[in-house]
């Protein structure tokens, strides 16, 4: 089992009536009314410190991600964050999990191939290369990519990236969306033939197919918990089986919100308002923006309109106890948290690469550190061995880190010669 700490880098101090006053947390929230650059500088530093702390506490990986024009999570360049993490964790066995730089918003997408190769070089081969499609808000609404071209651009950029990492000869790329006459990537990644690839998604069938065809790790990034993800993930494993791949649990990643305290009651006292802040404010986005016309192909559109399997409940009508009861958030004592994670997430969805979000919404820095610390000490060690007896190899993890069960407190002592 590999367990990584995920971070969104949210705005932690949105006004109480934010969701009533503003149209959306994404695309249109007014910076000048809502944020202050000096304060935001503190958020970035807290975020880095929280991830570095997680690395020090024994997490297997630290995850960053790319989003634009929003207060939900604003690391427009995950690789800037990732490079700090890579440098400062040198000497330890933590993976740098970029979840990641978004190909369709990078022009040319070769930029992602280059920066990931840099990160792999800086980190001594500890990169996990997340290659997300990007949300429609980011890709189409903020960055202007035509919704109908989003997936096609992604697929072309994905193929280009893989070829650019591996080609022995300089090559010309005469694509539909990208034309490059001399592709000759400098640098190349340390990991050969290329760093492990994760493709995050939110349950779209075409992304399942894509992930299985390309033999990458599919990561379901859900905020609705494992129970509502069950149908999706069962569908994913069916595709895996249908296409003749093995049922290696490391083919699946899952993101789960987690808060840990001495006991369940204390967890509510400490975390309830931050969880509600996250679901009420950080996800305040008009529904159509998640899937503007043209974003879904015709087949998926017909399927979604006729069988809305994810008839999402409106999280604004739910409170902390609802989120916990439904498994949106796994919360409580260490025992509660590890039992639920094991049963509902790891076993039920067959997940080998677990990501946990431990800084949630308005959660202040000190409390985030406390949550990370408690998780690392009292939950993580109990889950790490879950799949060991089945003997699967995590092909989607940096090779040199595959075998390590990271001791707590592994110190960062500077770059290891490679």
């Amino acid at each position, binding site marked *: 089992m590999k367990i990584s700490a995920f971070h969104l880098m949210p705005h932690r101090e949105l006004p109480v009536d934010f969701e009533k006053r503003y149209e959306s947390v994404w695309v249109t929230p007014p910076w000048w009314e809502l944020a202050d650059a000096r304060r935001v500088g503190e958020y970035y530093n807290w975020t880095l410190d929280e991830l570095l702390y997680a690395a020090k506490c024994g997490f297997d990986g630290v995850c960053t991600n790319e989003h634009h024009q929003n207060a939900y999570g604003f690391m427009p360049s995950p690789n800037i964050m990732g490079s700090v993490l890579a440098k400062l964790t040198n000497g330890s066995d933590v993976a740098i999990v970029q979840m990641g730089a978004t190909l369709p918003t990078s022009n040319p997408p070769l930029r992602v191939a280059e920066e990931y190769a840099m990160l792999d070089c800086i980190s001594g081969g500890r990169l996990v290369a997340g290659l997300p499609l990007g949300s429609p808000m980011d890709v189409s609404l903020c960055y*202007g990519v*035509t919704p109908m*071209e989003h997936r096609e651009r992604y697929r072309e950029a994905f193929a280009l990236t893989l070829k650019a990492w591996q080609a022995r000869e300089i090559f010309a790329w005469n694509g539909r969306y990208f034309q490059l006459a001399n592709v000759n990537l400098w640098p190349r990644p340390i990991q050969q033939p290329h760093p492990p690839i994760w493709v995050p998604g939110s349950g779209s069938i075409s992304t399942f197919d894509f992930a299985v065809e390309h033999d990458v790790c599919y990561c379901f990034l859900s905020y609705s918990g494992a129970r509502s993800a069950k149908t999706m993930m069962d569908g994913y494993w069916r595709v895996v089986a249908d296409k003749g791949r093995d049922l290696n649990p490391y083919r699946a990643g899952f993101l789960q919100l987690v808060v840990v305290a001495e006991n369940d009651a204390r967890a509510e006292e400490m975390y309830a308002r931050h969880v509600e802040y996250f679901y009420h404010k950080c996800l305040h986005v008009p*529904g159509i923006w998640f899937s503007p016309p*043209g974003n879904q192909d015709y087949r998926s559109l017909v399927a979604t*309109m*006729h069988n809305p399997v994810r008839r999402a409940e409106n999280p604004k009508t739910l409170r902390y106890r609802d989120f916990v009861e439904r498994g949106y958030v796994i919360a409580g004592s260490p025992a509660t948290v590890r039992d639920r994670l094991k049963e509902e997430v790891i076993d039920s969805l067959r997940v080998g690469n677990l990501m946990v979000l431990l800084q949630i919404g308005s959660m202040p820095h000190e409390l985030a550190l406390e949550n990370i610390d408690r998780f690392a000490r009292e939950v993580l060690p109990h889950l790490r061995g879950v799949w060991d007896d089945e003997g699967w190899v995590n092909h989607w993890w940096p090779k040199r880190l595959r075998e390590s069960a990271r001791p707590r407190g592994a110190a960062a002592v500077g770059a290891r010669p490679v």
Partner: protein
Amino acid sequence: MIREETHSVWQGRVRIRVLSKGRGPALVFFHGPWGLTWDPFLEELAQSFSVVAPEHPGTTPAAPDDIYHLDGLWDLVLCYDELLEALGLENAAFVGHSFGAMVACEVAAAYPRRARSLTLIAPIGFWRDAEPVVNWMMLDLDALRGRIFRDPAGDAAKRMFGPSEPPDAAAATRVRLMWSMGATGKFIWPIPDKGLKKRIHRVKAPTLLLWGQDDRLVPPAYADEFVRRLPGAGVQTMDGCGHAPQLEQPNRVAQMVRDFLRL
């Protein structure tokens, strides 16, 4: 009776269904972003004209994926030239609505001899920072309905948005609207200013602009952008209509078209 035929263009990769009816001078109608339906406006025009109404690529039922064979506006304009060729129409009166009016104008700019006249109903094609065209692809369907129509509860709106029951019919309507916006949106995302300003001077046809006074998607002020570049173009602003005057007041708009074309 409405005739229906499907033509293949673009090396056979793009199928375009064409609805037609009526006798008289040829009139080609280019529909807007919400798909083609044979509505009372077209019915009224068919009393005086031989109306030919093609579906934009991708919006023809059973051929949704054909849209993926077109990369941009230039491809689309060429497709329409091929279609007119296939229809045996050397030239015709062009009438277009919204996105379709922009397409009509682009075809008339690329092939000035193909357009005998241009009737542009609430056309897009230009951009003013101070009066942005609303991106209808960012609106949920209920909000959209209130933006297209002056009267969102009226018959015209009901016709476009269909019944809410049974659920399958409602779902089919949502698919039709979403897909039509996606397929047409491919040519205009994210700002519907795709260079018409560089090409519009090539238009030779007499032009009439029609705008609903209460257009809440494309402000009527955009008429100035067209008139500035097409000296002699007429402008009619209609009260009691939103972005689809030909649907909300079909008889009145049809009469305006007839009056204009008799000139």
